[in-house]
């Protein structure tokens, strides 16, 4: 019986998150129909997520082989969805438990400290839980200890990262009612700080004319398919048709093959996103409902695009600056003996844009450009430095993209080496 509970129920991530959703729905006193459909959807979401991982792994592996054949060095695609989906095979149960208990720690900290933030970006909570599980496990920690340490760190980050940004967030939104809950915080904080010291607040990005045509990049599946297609085709040209057509594609033309693989990868990420959406759909409202009851004056910490409408030009400027830094870094990384991080339009768009808005709020145009350049460097170098502490997970050709995953993982991984 104990074996059934410990291994088959708590050890099957899909069932485990379903169980958490079930408890959440019961605590909210939902009707029987909502409880049944909510629980089933959460379980299904987790299974969809794993299915997406299967789709994108093949393309990721092929990209790795082509890149290595062409340049004799490893090329890594930073993509949170991909690495989290891949990690669920090994760390699924740990991720689910750290995620839920991390939320509990968040509520406790918000209740008893002056930082009243409730971190509502559910997918980032999940990604961070997964990263912590991977790093702790690579350092030889396991079981209950892993879940306890992971949850405490996660809960603390969910409160302190929004708190760190709040002085700058206030300048953007003009109010203290809402915070940013997104694990790209270090990039935004650096951008805001650079803007403060090196920028000029009087000259805002919002006075310049910026073409609206780049707006289609907000469509993340389009942006991802586009970057991957470009990267695949460029790399394929360096790899050469002989290797690809003889060894990988089974005779299909190398360009056509690269294009379909690129879009297969984007399609896989799209499936993973659909799964993640279903997993967090029931858990986050339960978390919010409980937090609202327990924490007086709770401030919601929300996803980074909520600041975009406050400075639409800074969004475009920030993205471009961050992406330029990403491309430059791609050439700098091998000089330092690090793995090459292929710059992605999605991470540079979302975090670069948010860094642009922060930089603009504290330092105008110059702040937005310099701040986002810094963000671009940060999200290129940190993912590369993170790889060694991820253990076996670091060998899949992908890694976590956003700044906080890098900084937390690197600090934690190296700290644990001391013991």
């Amino acid at each position: 019986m104990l074996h059934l509970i410990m291994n088959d129920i708590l050890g099957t991530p899909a069932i485990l998150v379903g169980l958490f959703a079930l408890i959440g729905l019961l605590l909210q006193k939902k009707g029987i129909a909502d409880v049944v459909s909510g629980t089933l959807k959460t379980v299904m979401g987790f299974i969809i997520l794993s299915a997406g991982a299967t789709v994108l792994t093949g393309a990721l592996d092929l990209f790795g082989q082509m890149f290595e054949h062409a340049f004799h060095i490893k090329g890594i695609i930073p993509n949170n969805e991909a690495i989290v989906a891949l990690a669920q095979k090994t760390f699924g149960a740990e991720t689910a438990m750290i995620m839920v208990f991390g939320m509990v720690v968040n509520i406790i900290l918000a209740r008893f400290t002056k930082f009243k933030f409730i971190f509502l970006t559910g997918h980032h909570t999940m990604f961070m839980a997964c990263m912590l599980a991977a790093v702790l496990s690579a350092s030889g920690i396991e079981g209950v200890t892993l879940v306890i340490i992971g949850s405490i760190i996660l809960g603390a980050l969910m409160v302190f990262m929004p708190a760190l940004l709040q002085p700058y967030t206030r300048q953007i939104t003009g109010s203290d009612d809402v915070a940013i809950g997104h694990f790209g915080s270090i990039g935004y904080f650096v951008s805001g700080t650079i803007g403060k010291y090196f920028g000029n607040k009087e000259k805002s990005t919002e006075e310049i004319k910026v073409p609206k045509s780049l707006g289609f990049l907000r469509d993340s599946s389009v942006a991802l398919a586009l970057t991957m297609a470009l990267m695949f085709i460029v790399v394929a040209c360096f790899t050469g048709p002989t290797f690809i057509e003889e060894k990988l594609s089974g005779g299909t033309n190398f360009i056509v093959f690269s294009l379909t693989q690129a879009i297969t990868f984007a399609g896989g990420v799209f499936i993973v996103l659909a799964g993640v959406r279903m997993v967090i759909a029931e858990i986050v409202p339960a978390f919010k409902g409980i937090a609202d009851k327990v924490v007086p004056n709770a401030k919601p910490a929300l996803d980074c695009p909520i600041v975009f409408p406050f400075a639409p030009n800074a969004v475009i400027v920030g993205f471009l600056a961050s992406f330029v830094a990403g491309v430059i870094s791609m050439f700098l990384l091998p000089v330092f003996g690090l793995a090459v991080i292929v710059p992605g339009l999605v991470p540079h768009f979302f975090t670069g844009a948010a860094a642009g808005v922060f930089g603009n709020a504290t330092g105008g145009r110059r702040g937005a450009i310099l701040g986002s350049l810094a963000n671009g460097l940060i999200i290129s170098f940190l993912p590369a430095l993170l790889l060694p502490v991820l253990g076996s997970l670091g060998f899949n050709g992908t890694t976590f993209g956003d700044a906080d995953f890098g900084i937390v993982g690197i600090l934690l991984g190296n700290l644990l080496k001391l013991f």
Partner: protein
Amino acid sequence: MKILVVCGNGLGSSFMMSLNVQKAMKELNIEGTCSHTDLASSKSEQADYYIGSPEIMDQLNDGKRKVISLVNMFSLDEIKKALTTHILEG
């Protein structure tokens, strides 16, 4: 009545916003459901109204869809005001 909240990724912003839209619908006694999704999927999903930030709505607005743009996405007041003008009075 079906309301679809849309953002670039269909994960964070649209999800938070849909929680507030649901709250506003209840307070204004608007019968119906509200779900959230990403921009690409929203183009093939039917809904009576689409809600999102101005940039996202610009890309969704083809003249046939009923779109509602919100600048301050997390303000319940702004959502209520928008729902009142577009749905209750529209």
